[in-house]
């Protein structure tokens, strides 16, 4: 594809992204307005005089028309000012960014598990279509879709931590271990850089249960996509040619069919990010994982709205960017799409 065409496509997607971003701010602004309690009253305290509250309202701009308030809200967002966390008094954005590496590490491992299992099961079900393998995998994916994350987490905790004693049940490292010097904020990679084998093992052990729990929700969706995409590719002429030429089934499946069948996975992985973000709130609280999700849940329970709104905006932006990236990647790897644009 010509560079110019590509640039035009990217520009158009970016423009659409900006519009969605504006939509996100409208929605979060609306939610912040639904939130109970008068921010001025909250800041002034319960025993403040009405004059003081009125004064604060004026200073916060709460007496202005809604569209003026929205303008100010946008101004603050643009400068990364989400207000202070009511609980800690520190900027909400700082509180969240400090915990992002722990959450991203968890999400990446979960995504790795989900993608690997999704591809393996998807290829198997397509290769053994309408046999017991297919039925079994379909049953598994229905159960995976139907299992609440919070319950699976408790179950894994019960079996692997309490009964078998195989894996740790909370936190990121064994008690008594010092976190490796922070480079990336990912304990596994930082431990590797520091050459700290003990911390590396402990970090990996702590990741297994929460990441597996978080992965479950996405496996069902990924299996379905890989299966249907494989079935579609397997009916193409070039696959028939490859088979007719006498190539072994394994080569046909893995070398010729799989790479093309994986293209739709890009889009689905980006869409699954939404499930992972919501899932992280639950999984981190079940496994006491010191990341964004657990902090947000604590903030929800103590009505710390600046943190909740900051999280919502960041999550929406991350989701938006992931989908933009997926669109661009999709066009890059699939020449057929370029013809359309």
């Amino acid at each position, binding site marked *: 594809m010509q560079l110019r065409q590509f640039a035009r496509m990217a520009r158009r997607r970016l423009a659409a992204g900006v*519009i*969605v971003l504006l*939509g*996100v701010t409208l*929605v*979060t602004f609306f*939610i*912040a307005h*639904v*939130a*109970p309690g008068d921010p001025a009253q909250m800041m002034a305290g319960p025993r403040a005089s009405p004059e003081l509250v009125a004064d604060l309202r004026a200073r916060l701009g709460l007496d202005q028309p809604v569209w003026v308030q929205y303008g100010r809200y946008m101004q603050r967002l643009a400068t990364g000012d989400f207000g202070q966390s009511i609980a800690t008094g520190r900027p909400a954005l700082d509180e969240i960014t400090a915990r992002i590496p722990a959450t991203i590490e968890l999400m990446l491992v979960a995504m790795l598990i989900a993608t690997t299992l999704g591809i393996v099961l998807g290829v198997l079900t397509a290769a053994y279509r309408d046999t017991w393998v297919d039925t079994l995998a379909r*049953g598994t994916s*229905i*159960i995976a*879709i*139907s*299992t*609440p*994350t*919070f*319950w699976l987490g*408790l*179950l894994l*905790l*019960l079996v692997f931590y*309490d009964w078998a004693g195989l894996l740790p049940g909370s936190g990121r490292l064994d008690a008594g271990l010092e976190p490796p010097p922070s480079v990336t904020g990912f304990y596994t990679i930082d431990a590797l850089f520091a050459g700290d084998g003990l911390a590396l093992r402990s970090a990996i052990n702590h990741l297994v249960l929460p990441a597996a729990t978080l992965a479950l929700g996405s496996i069902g969706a990924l299996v379905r996509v890989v299966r249907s995409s494989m079935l579609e590719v397997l009916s193409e002429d070039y696959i028939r040619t490859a088979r007719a030429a006498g190539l072994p089934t394994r080569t046909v499946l893995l070398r010729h069919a799989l790479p093309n069948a994986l293209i739709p996975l890009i889009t689905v992985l980006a869409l699954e*990010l*939404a*499930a992972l*973000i*919501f899932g992280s*709130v*639950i999984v981190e*609280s*079940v496994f006491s994982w010191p990341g964004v999700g657990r902090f947000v*849940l604590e903030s*929800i*329970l103590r*009505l710390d*709205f600046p943190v*909740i*709104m900051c*999280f*919502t905006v960041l*999550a*929406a932006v991350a*989701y*938006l960017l992931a*989908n933009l990236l997926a669109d661009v990647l999709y066009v890059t790897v699939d020449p057929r799409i370029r013809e359309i644009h």
Partner: protein
Amino acid sequence: MHAGLATSGGRVWATLRRQPLGMAAVLVLSLVVVCALFAPWIAPYPPDAIDLASRLQPPSAAHWAGTDEVGRDILSRLIHGARASLGVGIGIVLIGSSLGIAIGSVAGYLGGKTDAVIGRVVDILLAMPAMVIALALSAAMGPGLGNAMIALGSVSVPMYARLARGQALSLRERDFVRASRALGAGTFHQLKFNIVPNLLPPAIVFMTFHLGSAMLAASALSFIGLGAQPPLAEWGALVSAGRGFVLQHWWYAVIPGLVIVLTAAAINLVGDVARDVIDTRRQP
């Protein structure tokens, strides 16, 4: 119309006979519905009957699913919980589908500027992470099963709007709709008698799958404390209450979770059956 109903009844039966798993799912789901409808008559104990003498009992002949920390019978709470859990799921689906189908079918049928505006807004809303928005919305509205239901219902409106709009766009070009328009049928008449009834079949398939995920989402909000509040027996809230005891008294959290999995799986399988029955293009 009556002939159509009769054949679709026959098709349901034929599809179920070919799918034993689908049949089992229908049975499980019927059981849950019966529990929800007749809970006070089926449950062996009142759901809030405290009996401190038999706290945290393991499953036994007297208490099939054990008892909780104040001696309430967990099975009875599960049976009553079917009302809250299934009810909130149905509520979410009804909020999303009624608003979404109304908005989408009007946009699709009218076309033009109305459709351009609604279509764009729906696209923008669909590009947002729905569960995260629902989380923030229900946090802002305050804890409570009703609020969780409104939050989860409203974030599902755009999905139904997109579905209905697509169907309405193609339906309005069909001959019977054109003929009706030529005979002077107004917009409301068209929507009520020609558009909405004909886009319902695919919408119903979607609603079935949505019921499963909506129930799970509501139970997740209850688990983290935003949905059902004590002492209301709701399945997610039961797992949440059992969470603190899971290492010593596993049944308390495990059995309610199992009920959620079974019900959600049954709903998803029934959704598969509904799709096979309604989507005639897939029939051999």
